[in-house]
């Protein structure tokens, strides 16, 4: 049994609270216990950095320190949260002055950033801590005949300092999808384009152009569904897609949903039943 601190960010509470329950169930099947780090706050979404970078570092030093206080590594299940927190960790680990300054503030809450906890994203957690074999063994309902387009999203591959896989030619997502029994499509034209999530409020037409390119090229390859390890990319695909003039109506999924389904959890509970672009395949 592996126990890991779960960082919830905004994507696993509020309107998406069910997602945390699903994750807990799914991870149980891999002998992983998720311990919710409920005192953690928003990572700042890579937006607080515009206000003040040190604030972003401090918020995330606190988030990490909360996992460290429990003696746990931390699992961050969102690409952007992962990137922001991993960047903060790097800054804190390499800049002693910064660490000291922030620790002086954290001490008031009885916390200290030590740098002892590893920050995992889903993909490297599955690869390094769980192992693909274990995933394969947990599969009850192989995704036979599912053509799944693998989409990583930017913030687990770039920048290099925080990348969890080979940034140019990553393989962890394909390995996981293969373990689920799916037929993986990873050579579609715009697999490396940004999903546009973060420009939806600031330059909407850019988001829609990106979705058009990505989902268009996915469709061309005849994929049944897109799988991404990022809840934000997933939202861009599932929700923002509908803002397109002619939505290609390509179904998408957040990776753990597909895993839940392959592990025998029903479509309703896995979340797959609730997408705006219906997941017809079963």
């Amino acid at each position: 049994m592996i126990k890991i601190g779960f960082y919830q960010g905004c994507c696993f509470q509020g309107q998406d609270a069910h997602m945390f329950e699903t994750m807990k169930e799914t991870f149980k099947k891999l002998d992983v216990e998720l311990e919710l780090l409920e005192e953690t706050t928003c990572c700042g979404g890579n937006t607080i950095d515009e206000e003040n970078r040190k604030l972003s570092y401090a918020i995330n030093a606190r988030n990490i320190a909360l996992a460290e206080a429990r003696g746990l590594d931390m699992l961050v299940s969102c690409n952007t949260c992962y990137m922001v927190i991993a960047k903060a960790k790097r800054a804190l680990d390499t800049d002693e002055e910064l660490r000291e300054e922030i620790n002086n503030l954290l001490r008031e809450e009885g916390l200290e950033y030590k740098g002892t906890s590893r920050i995992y994203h889903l993909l490297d957690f599955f690869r390094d801590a769980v192992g693909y074999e274990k995933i394969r063994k947990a599969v009850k309902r192989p995704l036979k005949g599912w053509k799944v387009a693998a989409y990583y999203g930017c913030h687990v591959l770039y920048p290099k300092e925080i990348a969890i896989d080979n940034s140019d030619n990553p393989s962890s997502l394909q390995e996981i999808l293969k373990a689920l029994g799916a037929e993986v499509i990873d050579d579609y034209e715009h697999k490396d384009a940004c999903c546009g999530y973060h420009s939806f409020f600031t330059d909407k037409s850019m988001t829609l152009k990106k979705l058009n390119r990505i989902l268009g090229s996915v469709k061309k390859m005849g994929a049944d569904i897109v799988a991404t390890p990022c809840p934000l990319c997933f939202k861009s695909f599932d929700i923002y897609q509908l803002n397109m003039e002619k939505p290609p109506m390509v179904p998408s999924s957040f990776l753990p949903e597909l895993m839940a389904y392959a592990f025998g959890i029903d479509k309703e509970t896995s979340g797959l039943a609730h997408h705006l672009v219906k997941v017809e395949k079963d």
Partner: protein
Amino acid sequence: METVKLQVFRYDPEKDAAPYYKEYEVPVEGTLLNALLYIKDNLDPTLAFRAFCRSEVCGSCSMKVNGKTKLACKTPMKELVETWKGKPLRIDPLSHMNVIKDLVVDIDKPIEKMKTLIPWLVPDPRVVPTDPMHESIIYPEEMKAYRDQIHCMLCFSCYSACEAVEDNSRYRGPFAFSRAYRFQVDRRDIETAKEKRIRYAISGGLWSCVQCQKCLYVCPKGVKPAEDIQNLRGQSVKKGFTDKPGARKLKHFVDWIYATGQINRLYLPEEVYGNKEAREKLTKAYQEMGVEVWEVPKPTKGLMKFRDIYLEILSKENKALELDFSHVRKIDKMVSDIFKADICTIVDRAHERGESAKGLIGKLKELLGGK
């Protein structure tokens, strides 16, 4: 000797009807630039590419390998072969610029775009002596603010890889914003120029960057354009350019995270666009799907201490926005109404809340307008 196949983009607009790829077998030795020189010396003298210093200084040898931007003289062939597992390597010219011949592109466009951001020092006569006999001193401490940016060698790797350039032709480019920022934090540069630069940056797409971080990834010199863009956005807000969706989004983050430890995605569209409808529509859409929606701003344990840390940093640092306490009080009131207690009590009882949270859903739907 180990070899690998390079499929090299070939195109001479004066002769060829269309571009094509030509395959060459090269030794897996040295850098990609060595491989190209090998082709030129031994296999095909007609191949055109740019390179000069061979040591990551001149910035002329950027190109794409299997779609990924690389500086040829910095990229070991071994690494490429390992990454792509021995598969052929497709070599293309940089994106977003016209091809002059083969791997040589026309860099005029990005250069012209950069110039619109005043990428030079406009001396402030109060700081920079006009008398050439007097030195204009910069202290090492000051230089830290633009230590990385000055290493940009205009290789255009970031311009080629940029997601914003790809879908917004007006977008000035990562390196251009980094150059601009470099002067924004130079004490010798006059305030009026700084103001203008921000204006031009905004019209040049400052808020269009998607923060994909590809510019950080591809830059051979460790420049961090995406972060400079964030800094410029902060400066623009500080200078009063707050009437932008991006600036309002920032305000949402700053206020809500302070108030509740979280952003509030139901209120975000409303606070960015004044769009109440989005909140109502979202709530309704979820209800129709049978999903319980409640975007309760859920104050976390330790929130009061968290607020202290937050304020402490903001009070010491050069911030973009002031925390809007009247907004924070409104948020507090909303939270108090929902939980029927004041914010401190709610935070104290946070641990008891887990299970009972679901009971709040009906109430919240009412409050959040999802009736």
